[in-house]
């Protein structure tokens, strides 16, 4: 039984990184990953800039643990100011990572609102539980291959994260 559970978890993780350049992380979401030798490239896409940021965060925390097992029990609010969209992405992801480590939590749901340069965000998740599958720790979001852009009707946010 235990082996079956392990296999099942592993298969789900392999599915989200099956070797193609871009593929889905969590069914129904538009997080994805791209190739990098030592670390991992993350992509968030959405109809709005804010949604792209939300799905980018799902891509980051999807490396840490399977998000469908994380209960959105506790809300953590983070506000910051940044005029540069690219630096805002990295700043936000790093604030999330820092807050998660400070509180011993993992986040699975994200909400982002922006009024000009002021970003008001919320992350929902819970403290680590023994039964949660351990993935890989993300040390930080980098400025490498960092881009936030709108293509047609879709926003896309991407960067390399250090693991």
């Amino acid at each position, binding site marked *: 039984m235990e*082996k079956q559970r*392990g*296999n099942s*978890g*592993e298969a789900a*993780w*392999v599915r989200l*990184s*099956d*070797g193609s350049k871009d593929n889905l992380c969590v069914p129904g979401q538009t997080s994805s*990953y791209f*190739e*990098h*030798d*030592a*670390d*991992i490239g993350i992509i968030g896409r959405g109809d709005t800039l804010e949604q792209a940021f939300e799905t980018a965060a799902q891509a980051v925390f999807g490396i*840490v*643990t399977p998000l469908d097992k994380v209960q959105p029990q506790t809300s953590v609010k983070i506000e910051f100011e940044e005029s540069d969209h*690219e*630096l805002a992405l*990295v*700043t936000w992801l*790093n*604030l999330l*990572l*820092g*807050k998660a*480590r*400070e509180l*011993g939590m*993992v986040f699975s749901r994200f909400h982002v609102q922006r009024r000009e340069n002021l970003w008001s965000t919320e992350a929902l998740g819970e403290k*680590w539980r023994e039964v*949660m*599958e*351990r*993935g*890989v*720790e993300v*040390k*930080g*979001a*980098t*400025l*490498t291959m*960092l881009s936030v852009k709108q293509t047609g009707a879709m926003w896309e946010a991407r960067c*390399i994260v*250090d*693991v």
Partner: protein
Amino acid sequence: MNLERLRQLQPCLWTLPRTLGEERGEVLLYGSAPLLVSMDDKVLEQIANVASLPGLVGAAMTMPDAHWGYGFPIGGIAAFDAEQGGVISAGGVGFDISCGIRCLRSNLDLEDAVEYFPQLGNALFRAIPAGVGEEGEIKLNPEQLDQVMHGGAHWAVQQGYGTAADLDYVEEQGRVAGAIPDNVSELAKKRQRGEMGTLGSGNHYLEVQVVDRIFDPAVALAFGLHEGQILISIHCGSRGLGHQIGTDYLVLLAKAASRLGIHLPDRELACAPVNSPEGQQYMGAMNAAINCALANRQILTHLARSVFTEVYPQAELETLFDVSHNTCKAETHQIDGESRLLYVHRKGATRAFGPGHPMLPERYRQVGQPVVIGGSMGTGSYILVGDSENPAFASSSHGAGRAMSRHQALARWKGRALVDELAQQGILIHTRSMRGVAEEAPGAYKDVDLVAEATEEAGLARRVAFLRPKVCVKG
């Protein structure tokens, strides 16, 4: 990597010629043709970017284990002169500031120890907090954390973690000067509160190894090594504190570079002149993280010792050496016969002082510094010795270097199957992350033998001993 773009200078030394009108310093790549062919072209792009930074002295270089990183390539080295506008780069150090390897030699031989490896592995796994989400038992208040940032491994020894004898064999004798805890953010300090004495995740490990082969008996004797001997290697860094310092200063230095008119081909090269307020601020914070890493590996040494003496009452573990491979250090080097103070960035590269260097402990001063090339959990690691003729600011390879992405590794291997396969080979893996094991599959790394051979051929360091893994606690 397409070798047609390179010019071969020696069997294991290549340069990237400048294109017409290209304004940058020299680029040198150390490694054999097969190793360079296996590298991504991004390595070339990244090291060429590094060579364009202000105040570069000599060449920007890559080691034989280089691979595509962020900002600098992993295995990248660059030295800057502060008096010539030289910079310090947060991207040239990375997030895991002072990540490194502590190597311990034991008085145990394989034939005595092997029977108890299963108990040893279980006990180490219980005692060493490893993997994402794991915290240590040590909880520090802000005052204690400031003491860690000033005191490094000395602080840990004062608290009863290890012995004063360890400190002689830790880089900088266990503590760097110039740490300024006030330059470290509150969030960085909060992130570290529960992370002292933890291993971390990704490619971090605590590995029990056996000396499988001696290449240089005289140096091995000086290092206290013999065939069949059990060693322990601990690979980890400055944990949450260093990660947050890297994070904080990346954006701060990127903005400083923009304000100061420093062109960054990749914003991850975020830097400021060493002598600028931002450069000095980062230096103080980075040194605080270095001390935190040295303290962390000292605590893990103590935990490993406790486990070993529980399983083998006669066990004694001495520190062979502790050296970091993600740092920027102020060092004096001879340039064209002149002594110059340089800020040497080593990102995924190990310092490798040769014989006679005044910073080496007396025991090693005649032969040179122990250098560790940490391999994958399935193949093995090398101990080498620094060479006085080292042409790369006394630097050497630090690991096998990835040959494929984590993405590709996940698609090819399954963690559970790998653990079983390695167990059949007599290598016991303990982990909380099967994903981590798959990403760190031995096949995802370059051939460590080729890396060690090329390191020696290039004159960076000479092989002393090859170590085979026996028990591995994976982060």
